[in-house]
């Protein structure tokens, strides 16, 4: 009871600080004179960086140009998107399939760019789904979601999808521990048996080098705590992965107080090379689970979903030298490894210090068995033995750190709403700037790789009171761009974002732009119902299913008159866009459609299922302004009563009177 009270008081004190502390004293001096010229990108000129920003609860990812902050595209990942028909078209529906069935929404927190030799390579970007645990891989040639894998034995897939130096693995750590057994998991047990029954896992998802195809290589079974963030080792710490954990109190109610009791939680160090050895030696145990692997084929323009039923689990209680805990103050969030790979930086959400751990010291401590007992069978390395040093009084509530490649670290402080720049070797604070307002993650282009392109740091803010025109109770969240080329950070710009800009990655534009796909080659379209040329346009009946093989080109559909559809039929419009010109998609919409429209890229085939609910003549049209005669791009489909004698027929360019 007393502990409870103290905890509450601390929480209230921090909250009070947050409310009063987040608003800067003098906004007028926040931006200096030449900021606008530094972010101005003239019409016809390109931005220097791509910035991939998570859409949080929108389930999507957004692409901005830097330094302008202009929104270039919203990429649908885990949420259906009526703009393009993603998740609505017959071809894309399988992308959102899971062991729970069709899940059309999620909470995307962390984008992660693929790397080769520890450097950003511009091939793919990964994103995590927190709610129904999944990892997506987006192809940066087509800017489409190419693959989604569900993670079994996981709830709240938060420390994800961080990657190893050559994208050998993307990882997925569960935020919520929960009971799991060997019979497709999650048995019915009393919640107050948390300590006995609840477990956590981290998953290593293998990524095939050429295709990017993902599958779960192995999972590690862990004590019941909450896993928050993670990062790969690099250089000297290659072969290791680090995760932050909180709630080592193993509380299961009112965590805001009960998970903040201990002075220190843990950074978990995983030797994944060792784990690989155990896998090779057959030491893992196969467990029965169910999870979906969904892949989009660029040639058939169609996704397939496969349910898998087994996963390999390693137990560190039985397999030594694989997992260690390092104490870390106080409810750590960020877990970041500097570009040299020597230092691991933990950030306690409730701490007023930043602990910097040394990988070399950690190895020495492990060899000397310099342990402070164990936690649920896993050795706990002594804090001082792994510690390189602490940054004293940097601010309140450090969250996440990225690096400029020049020996400096940039840490976000949620509670005191600021970015603090500090020197890693010297542990000295060099500069601090306010953010407007409560910052979560931050991003330096390439800032979690071995080779940051340290020109900017971007803050991703949760609260924007008074920064923009009001839009009712809900205001946009925002990103802020700071120049970090000088000794002092300089605020240049803030720009609104979609959903929640939780975390982001950025890289030089030329890594990606040069490979960008302009069209899908129609010669390579292997969609089974493609009409590759107007000569192949047709309508076929198969029982109650009517398949329309339709083509679109500026400025007409073929066929554009269809009769003989009857009530009770399902109509499948398979629309092939015959254009082979960049930036000429065509849309397809039909009156009364219960799902969405389609937006079909040049050379692509997409299918809209439409079930007429009444007799009549229904227009369909192109929704994307494609030419001067776009408005004329339309057609009619006639629906007759069930059992009617109207023959199935279709045409285009025929205007005779009926016989």
């Amino acid at each position, binding site marked *: 009871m007393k502990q409870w009270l103290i905890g509450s008081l601390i929480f209230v004190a921090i909250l009070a600080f947050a409310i009063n502390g987040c608003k800067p004293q003098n906004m007028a001096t926040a931006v200096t004179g030449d900021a606008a010229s530094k972010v101005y990108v003239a019409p016809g000129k390109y931005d220097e960086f791509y910035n991939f920003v998570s859409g949080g609860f929108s389930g999507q990812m957004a692409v901005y140009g830097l330094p302008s902050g202009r929104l270039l595209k919203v990429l649908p990942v885990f949420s259906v998107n009526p703009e393009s028909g993603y998740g609505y078209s017959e071809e894309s529906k399988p992308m959102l399939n899971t062991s729970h069935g069709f899940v059309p929404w999620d909470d995307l927190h962390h984008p992660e760019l693929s790397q080769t030799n520890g450097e950003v390579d511009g091939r793919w970007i990964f994103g995590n789904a927190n709610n129904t645990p999944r990892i997506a891989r987006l192809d940066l040639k087509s800017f489409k979601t190419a693959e989604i894998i569900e993670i079994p034995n996981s709830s709240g897939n938060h420390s994800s999808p961080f990657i190893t130096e050559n994208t050998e693995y993307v990882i997925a750590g569960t935020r919520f521990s929960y009971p799991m057994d060997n019979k497709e998991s999650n048995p019915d047990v009393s919640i107050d048996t948390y300590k006995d029954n609840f477990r956590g896992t981290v998953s290593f998802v293998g990524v095939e080098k050429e295709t990017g195809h993902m599958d779960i290589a192995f999972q590690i079974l862990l004590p019941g705590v909450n896993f928050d963030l993670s990062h790969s080792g690099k250089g000297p710490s290659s072969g290791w992965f680090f995760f932050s954990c909180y709630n080592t109190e193993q509380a299961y109610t009112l965590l805001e107080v009960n998970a903040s009791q201990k002075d220190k939680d843990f950074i978990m160090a995983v030797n994944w090379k060792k784990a690989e050895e155990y896998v090779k030696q057959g030491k893992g145990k196969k467990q029965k689970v169910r999870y979906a692997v969904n892949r989009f084929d660029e040639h058939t323009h169609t996704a397939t979903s496969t349910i898998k039923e087994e996963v390999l689990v390693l137990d560190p209680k039985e397999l030594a030298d694989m997992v260690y805990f390092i104490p870390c103050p106080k409810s750590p969030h960020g877990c970041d490894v500097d570009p040299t790979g020597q230092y691991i930086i933990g950030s306690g959400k409730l701490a007023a210090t930043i602990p910097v751990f040394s990988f070399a010291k950690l190895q020495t401590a492990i060899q000397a068995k310099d342990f402070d007992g164990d936690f649920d069978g896993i050795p706990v390395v002594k804090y001082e033995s792994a510690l390189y040093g602490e940054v004293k009084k940097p601010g309140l509530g450090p969250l996440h750190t990225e690096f400029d490649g020049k020996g400096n670290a940039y840490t976000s402080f949620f509670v005191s709403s600021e970015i603090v720049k500090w020197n890693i070797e010297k542990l000295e604070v060099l500069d601090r700037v306010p953010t407007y307002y409560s910052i979560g993650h931050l991003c330096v282009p390439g800032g979690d790789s071995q080779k940051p392109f340290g020109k900017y740091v971007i803050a991703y803010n949760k609260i924007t009171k008074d920064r923009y025109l009001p839009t009712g109770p809900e205001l946009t969240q925002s990103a802020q761009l700071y120049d970090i080329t000088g000794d002092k950070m300089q605020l240049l710009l803030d720009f609104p974002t979609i959903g929640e800009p939780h975390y982001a990655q950025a890289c030089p534009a030329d890594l990606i732009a040069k490979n960008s796909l302009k069209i899908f080659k129609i010669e390579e379209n292997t969609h089974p119902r493609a009409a590759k*040329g*107007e000569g192949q346009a047709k309508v076929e009946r198969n029982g109650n299913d009517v398949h329309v093989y339709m083509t679109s080109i*500026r400025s007409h559909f073929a066929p554009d008159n269809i009769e003989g559809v009857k009530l009770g039929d399902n109509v499948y419009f398979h629309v092939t866009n015959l254009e082979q*010109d*960049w930036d000429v998609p065509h849309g397809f919409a039909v009156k009364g459609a219960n799902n969405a429209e389609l937006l079909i890229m040049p050379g692509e085939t997409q299918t809209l299922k439409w079930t007429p609910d009444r007799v009549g003549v229904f227009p369909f049209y192109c929704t994307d302004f494609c*030419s001067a*005669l776009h408005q004329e791009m339309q057609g009619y489909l006639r629906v007759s009563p069930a059992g009617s004698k109207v023959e199935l027929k279709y045409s285009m360019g025929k205007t005779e009177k009926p016989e």
Partner: protein
Amino acid sequence: MKKIAIFLSLVIFLAACGGGQMTPPNQPTTIKKTSSSPEDDMLAQGKGIGEVKSVELGTPLDQARVGRGKSIYDMKCSACHKLTAERVVGPGWLGLTKTRKPEWIMNMITNVEVMLEKDPEAQKLLELCLTRMPNQNVSIGDARDVLEFMRQVDGEK
């Protein structure tokens, strides 16, 4: 934005036609004849503008080319061009190889944006059809095959 630009330029076209002025915009009313570039020479010879400078036509027709040309036509061209003289979205193909130089036809297929910007004959067609011919990403080799197919359409053996 690009789409709006295309639309606006067509609106200007329409307005210009409505006013009885047939001079397309961006076209100088007087052409300096002082020095002639290779581009001007091509235009003057009715070959259009593009990579295709000269084409050798053979007889009899190369049947392999005709076959390939037809399948490209079916996939990428038939939506807008009939094999008769009837104009739909674009001009019908019948008789085209008799009235246009082979170089002009191949340049129109492979270099359509520049042709619509600079070639007076292409511009006349745009005024007639009001739909910009799409760039269908046809290679020079494929365009040659299409040309062979067009010759067959025109009755050549």
